[in-house]
């Protein structure tokens, strides 16, 4: 069966520090992968999506970036975190027309 992993589960980082969040998927190949952010409140904001290795579409111009170095690995990065980067980061993959989400990473920038 397919599973999706995210780590770390929680992270507290100072302003200006770098960030690397990792998402990996098991049990499937060539999935569409997505990064969403959920800030205080409830909306899910699409940040990046990828349809294949090295293919990244950015939805929100900001200080975050994404990479897909391997078929089932999706990484969210930042060189310098801002206070506004705090939130709940969710990775998802698409099977057919149904999305499945990882457990998320809670990021607090102080």
């Amino acid at each position, binding site marked *: 069966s397919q599973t999706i992993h995210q780590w770390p589960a929680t992270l507290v980082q100072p302003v200006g520090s770098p960030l690397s969040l990792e998402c990996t998927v098991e049990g499937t190949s060539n999935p569409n992968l997505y990064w*969403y952010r959920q800030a205080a409140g409830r909306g899910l904001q*699409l940040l990046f999506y990828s349809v294949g290795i090295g293919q990244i579409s950015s939805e929100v111009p900001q200080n975050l970036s994404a990479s897909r170095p391997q078929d089932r690995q999706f990484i969210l990065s930042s060189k310098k975190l801002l206070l506004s980067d705090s939130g709940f980061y969710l990775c998802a993959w698409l099977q057919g*027309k149904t999305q499945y989400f990882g457990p*998320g990473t809670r990021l607090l920038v102080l």
Partner: protein
Amino acid sequence: GIQVEQSPPDLILQEGANSTLRCNFSDSVNNLQWFHQNPWGQLINLFYIPSGTKQNGRLSATTVATERYSLLYISSSQTTDSGVYFCAVPAGGDKIIFGKGTRLHILP
């Protein structure tokens, strides 16, 4: 781009009550998903329902694609139904966007 609106934004019900959540979208879609986010943040896919009606236990969903809305019905609510309910639709290519959700609180 396509807009997704969910209503009501918040709903408080007594255990055992029924509820109807609505999702309106501004353009035709070939895919619509309903999700439940539990209080711990986990998002669970409830339905993939581009049109028609589906049922799964106490939950059912109906999408009227021609009128650009979908409804999620929860019958005989339980406290475990609490959380936020989202609908999500394609927004061009492989993009999928979410509504702002309906926060449901079921009182024991």
